[in-house]
Every structure is written in structure tokens, then in C-alpha cells.
């Protein structure tokens, strides 16, 4: 960021829940269904149709609220947000206004410049719109379309909106927030949170001000940002654009913008909608929502371990912070890590193997860990062999990839490949004695206090044993026998 300037960033995130049925009707939530085959009078807004809320969706939003440390309002209300747009069948969206289900939460994120606490203003329940396909010469771009096709399968899918306080200050923090929120939603199992598929998407508010200025600048809102990378780039672009504009004597216009991935720029939306007057009022078709204390407590008790807690637990077990994050982000890696550690493996070693060698090997063979035979028990066995000095750490890596490739258990592989280290002191001693006897000069030098030949002698013993002797044992023996 340009010195002398500070950015103020807030993010609104929409998350589609993966319930079986829609928010207010029994149509399936099915993204793969043929267009308009998951529609009924309620989600198409045919006259006289009445909405009936999905209990699971309310349970899911309470989960999200609790995971974000929100207060859960015992009473909340559905409102109608009125606006006209072709993807909105009723000409209003059922949403919430005053009294959302969840309010006043916070989330801890770890950005490059340190930890940041991001306030969560509210988490409210609403319904998704239909899907528009813009058809024309512009290759699907809304500005160049000559007409639009509408599929209402998505209309009425439960949608949760999560709104932050303007607590973020840098593009990296915005990305770290988006990333942590996605992890939490995935851990809760309430959505597939696929950014590329639009089941999780960001609207990002950005303004700039001179450092130390207590007032916020005029903000812009960039809508429907659909990747973490884009989230970071949108913020960076808007900061630069706004600072340049103001320094050139201009001013920022409060407006809605959209992100163009190809040009890597935001541009103002030219909308026919002139007035942003949503005329919210309470939906008379719906009863107040009540999340009773016993219900809330039961949901709280059912929450799975959250990603931040899991990372902390892995670090506590011995993994370093970067490895803990990679492990916690992958169900396949974390389950194997946990099994291995439960079976007595060295957590630090297993974390390094999984996040380094295993991930690299999977990338080479273009494979998924769950499609391999690698188990936590394999890792525990391998770890035990290394700890016992039966296998060198470099040999362990070869055994590990062979295990992933399905060649057998680590011990079978190590034996078959003749990689087992000799740690038996008696056996190594024979080799040491032979080497010392054949190199009396070197032994004499060491006796005179010249330590230089020590490495040579150890190397000779390793050669004598075909490289299979445990170097630690060799070193100890050579030392003991030459220094008396």
C-alpha cells in the first residue's frame, strides 16, 4: 500500500447450504439437475403459494453463528427485500433485517502481518436467486448480452449471509478471512463452499483514507467475487484505484462494481435499477423464528472441532505451524496424521512426511490420498522403525513412496529392498574392529589428539557394512574405541 494511506475493508459472504430441500419448499437442492426441473409453485412464486421454512437450514445457520462466536437471537424475523430483477421470481427476496438469527460475533485470522480479530456484524438467513445465463457476442459478459436465459433451480436454495465489521486493512487480510471462513464452513459440513461453483461468494467493500484520519472514506462494493485469489486482487486493485483518484484531485463514487478476471480490473455496474430502496417489511407469510436455549445448546454440543482448534492441537502434538495448517485443511491428511499419532508415531516426523513427501508424491502420480492404501498405521510403523534406528530417515522416504504405491507394509518394503539399518552393536563392532585394525595410522593420530581422521574411519565402517549400519551407533563405537 502507498505510504500515508490506509484501507478499510469489509466482506459480505454468501454461503449456499447443502440441505436436501430448498429453504421454503420441498424442491431438491440439486445443482446438476436440468434447467427448471427443480421448481414448484413456491419457488416460482405462483399465486397463492406459501413458504414453509426448512428446519435443517435454521439449524445450519445457528451452527455457523456459534462457530463465529455470535450471540444467537432467541427471536428473529423474516423480512421481504423488494427489488425487481429477472432472477427473482417473487420480486422480493425473503431475507432478514432487524433481528437476524446471529449477531455480534468475531473470528481470529492469521495474516502475514500477524493475527487479526475480525468482528462479525451479523449472520442472517435468506434464499438464493435463480441463475442467469447472459447470451450474446460478449462470451457471457452481462454488458454485451443481447438476451438472458433463466434457470430457477437455484431460486429458493437456503443462503446464509455473513457480514463483517470494517476491520480488515490489507488485501492479504481479506484473503486470509475468506480462507478461514471457508475452512469453518467446510468443517461444519453445512455447505460444500465451492467458490468456483458459486456456492460461496464474496461481496467486498473497500474505502481508503489517509493514515490517522478517523473518518471512513467513500466505499465501493465489488460483487460476486468467486475465488480467494480474486478477493485479494479486487481489494488491491480498488485500493490503488481509489488512492490514485483522490491524489489526482478526484473523489470516489459510492457504487457497485464488478470484477473482470481477464482484465484484472473492477468496473462500475451500469444498472437500470435507479433506486436502492428495498422497502423491507416483515413477511406476513412467515412466523417469527424462535431458537430456544435448549435447541441452541444442543446445536452447540454437536459442533465439530473447528479448524483453529484443530491446528492448535496439531501444533501441541509437535507439528510446526505450517504443517498443522496443511494437515487441518485436508481430511485425507488429517485423518492419517491422527491415526498415526494415536498409534504412537512421532507427530513431528509424520507431519513432515505427510505435508512434504506424501503430498509431493501424490502430485507426481496425480493421485488422491484416499485412492491410495497409505494408512495411519503404515505411518506409525515407519515412524517406529526410524525411531528404533532400523531405517535411516532418507531410506524412510523411499519406503514411504513405495508404501503409497501399494508395494506392501513399510517393514516388508524395507526388508525386500534391503534398506534395514544394522543397529545391532555386536554386528557393527565387528566391522569397526576390522576398520580400526586396518587403519592403525589414523587411530594413532586420534590418540595424539588429531580428530581429523574420525570422519574417514566412520566412512570406512559404513562402507564395510554396505551403508546399512546405523550411523549413530557407528559414530559412538568409533569414538569409544579410538579415544579410549
Amino acid at each position, binding site marked *: 500500500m502507498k505510504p500515508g494511506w490506509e484501507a478499510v475493508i469489509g466482506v459480505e459472504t454468501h454461503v449456499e447450504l447443502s440441505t436436501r*430441500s430448498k429453504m421454503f419448499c420441498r424442491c431438491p437442492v440439486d445443482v446438476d439437475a*436440468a434447467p*427448471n426441473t427443480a421448481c414448484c409453485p413456491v419457488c416460482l412464486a405462483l399465486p397463492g403459494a406459501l413458504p414453509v*421454512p426448512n*428446519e435443517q437450514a435454521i439449524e445450519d445457520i445457528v451452527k455457523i453463528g456459534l462457530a463465529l462466536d455470535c450471540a444467537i437471537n432467541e427471536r428473529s424475523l423474516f423480512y421481504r427485500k423488494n427489488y425487481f430483477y429477472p432472477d427473482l421470481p417473487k420480486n422480493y427476496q425473503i431475507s432478514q433485517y432487524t433481528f437476524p438469527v446471529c449477531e455480534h460475533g468475531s473470528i481470529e485470522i492469521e495474516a502475514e502481518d500477524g493475527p487479526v480479530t475480525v468482528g462479525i456484524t451479523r449472520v442472517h438467513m435468506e434464499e438464493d436467486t435463480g441463475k442467469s445465463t447472459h447470451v450474446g457476442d460478449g462470451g457471457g459478459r452481462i454488458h454485451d448480452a443481447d*438476451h*438472458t436465459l433463466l434457470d430457477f433451480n437455484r431460486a429458493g436454495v437456503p443462503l446464509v449471509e455473513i457480514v463483517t465489521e470494517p476491520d480488515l486493512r490489507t488485501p492479504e487480510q481479506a484473503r486470509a478471512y475468506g480462507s478461514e471462513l471457508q475452512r469453518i464452513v467446510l468443517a461444519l459440513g453445512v455447505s460444500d463452499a465451492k467458490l468456483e461453483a458459486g456456492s460461496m461468494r464474496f461481496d467486498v467493500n473497500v474505502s481508503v483514507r489517509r493514515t490517522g484520519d478517523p473518518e471512513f472514506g467513500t466505499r465501493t462494493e465489488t460483487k460476486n467475487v468467486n475465488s480467494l485469489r480474486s478477493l485479494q486482487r479486487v481489494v488491491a486493485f480498488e485500493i490503488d484505484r481509489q488512492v490514485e483518484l483522490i491524489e489526482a484531485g478526484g473523489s470516489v463514487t459510492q457504487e457497485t462494481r464488478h470484477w473482470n478476471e481477464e482484465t484484472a480490473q473492477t468496473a462500475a455496474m451500469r444498472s437500470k435499477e435507479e433506486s436502492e430502496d428495498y422497502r423491507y417489511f416483515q413477511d406476513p407469510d412467515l412466523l417469527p423464528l424462535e431458537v430456544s436455549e435448549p435447541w441452541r445448546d444442543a446445536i452447540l454440543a454437536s459442533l465439530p472441532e473447528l479448524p483453529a482448534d484443530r491446528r492448535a492441537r496439531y501444533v501441541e502434538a509437535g507439528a510446526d505451524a505450517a504443517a498443522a495448517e496443511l494437515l487441518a485443511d485436508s481430511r485425507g491428511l488429517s485423518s492419517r496424521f491422527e491415526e498415526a499419532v494415536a498409534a504412537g508415531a512421532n507427530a513431528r516426523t509424520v507431519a513432515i512426511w505427510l505435508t512434504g513427501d506424501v503430498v509431493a508424491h501424490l502430485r507426481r502420480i496425480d493421485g488422491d490420498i484416499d485412492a491410495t492404501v497409505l494408512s495411519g498405521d503404515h505411518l506409525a510403523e515407519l515412524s517406529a522403525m526410524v525411531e528404533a534406528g532400523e531405517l535411516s530417515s532418507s531410506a524412510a522416504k523411499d519406503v514411504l513412496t513405495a508404501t503409497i504405491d501399494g508395494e506392501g507394509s513399510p517393514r516388508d518394503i524395507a526388508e525386500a529392498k534391503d534398506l534395514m539399518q544394522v543397529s545391532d552393536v555386536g554386528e557393527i563392532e565387528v566391522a569397526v574392529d576390522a576398520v580400526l585394525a586396518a587403519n592403525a595410522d589414523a587411530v594413532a593420530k586420534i590418540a595424539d589428539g588429531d580428530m581429523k581422521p574420525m570422519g574417514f574411519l566412520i566412512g570406512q565402517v559404513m562402507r564395510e557394512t554396505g551403508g546399512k549400519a546405523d550411523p549413530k551407533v557407528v559414530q559412538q563405537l568409533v569414538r569409544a574405541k579410538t579415544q579410549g
Partner: protein
Amino acid sequence: MPVDIDIAKVAKLARIALTDDELDQYGHQLEDILEHAERVQALPTEGIEPTSHPMPMVNGFRRDEVGECLDPDSFLSQAPDTRDGQFRVPRILGE
């Protein structure tokens, strides 16, 4: 208690085209309704708990179960224009 209302704006927000005579007519009618609401609002309500619904009911949930959907032809056939099983509308954004 006279109430001022911008009936032209209300009509525009609701996407209803009204003639000048209609604007005048509906404007007066809405003003009458809002004046009545003003009178209701003037009632002493101190000590009365706010309600959003006349019946002491909440939630009215359904279980998360999938039911029947409509045959797309049954509603697409009612639309002014369709293509490939979808509704077709003119371009959305203006210049």
C-alpha cells in the same frame, strides 16, 4: 393529520405505470390509509409488549425432505419467451 406521499416514486418502485389522473386518485387513497395509520400510532401503547403476529405461534418448520416438482413444460408454456428449457428475457443492463 395530513401525510405527504410521493406517489410517483411509489409507483415507480413497484413498476406500475400510472396516468396523472391515476397518480392523483391513488395518491389520495394512500394518504387516507396512512392518515389512519397515524391515528393508530398515536394510541397510548406504553406497557404493551410489541407483537409481530396475532397468534402466539413460532417457527412452523418443515423437515428437510424432498417433494414433488412441477413438469417444466407446465410453466414454461405460460412464459412469453423460452429457449432450451429456460425463460428468455431481454438484456438486463442498460447503457
